[in-house]
């Protein structure tokens, strides 16, 4: 049984290296046959560059999403603490009978914007 497994393993290894050889040989053939004189990139290079930009896009997309989530959380926390602070100041003003200074136009717009 052991011998059979070893034999199978060797077969897989040979298939693997044969496939690598075929791939390299094919790529070499395309690169040498493709008229480099055109100044354009050969198909194999383009294929590699295509997969490179796809994975770069995926990486950036994940980064973009995590930045957006973090930003939303922080903005929500800022709104919450601002509201609490304004509410508490208004309570203080009531308690101390201080003249309630109304929000200025600019502050009203800002409060509206944060909502």
């Amino acid at each position: 049984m052991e011998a059979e497994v070893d034999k199978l393993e060797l077969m897989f290894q040979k298939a693997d290296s044969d496939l690598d050889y075929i791939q390299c040989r094919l790529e070499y053939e395309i690169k040498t046959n493709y008229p480099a004189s055109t100044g354009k990139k050969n198909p194999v290079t383009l294929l590699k560059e295509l997969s490179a930009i796809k994975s770069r896009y995926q990486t950036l997309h994940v980064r973009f999403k995590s930045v957006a989530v973090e930003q939303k959380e922080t903005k929500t926390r800022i709104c919450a603490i601002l509201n609490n602070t304004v509410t508490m100041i208004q309570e203080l003003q009531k308690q101390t009978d201080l003249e309630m200074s109304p929000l200025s136009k600019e502050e009203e717009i800002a409060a509206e914007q944060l909502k």
Partner: protein
Amino acid sequence: TLKDDVSVLVDKACVTSRENSGFMKAAKVLME
């Protein structure tokens, strides 16, 4: 296509940046 997807993300990021600067300004007004 990939080109369109990337363009959409870039546009989205630009819009978010504008929103953020407005948000920061408003928060600072209220803070003062």
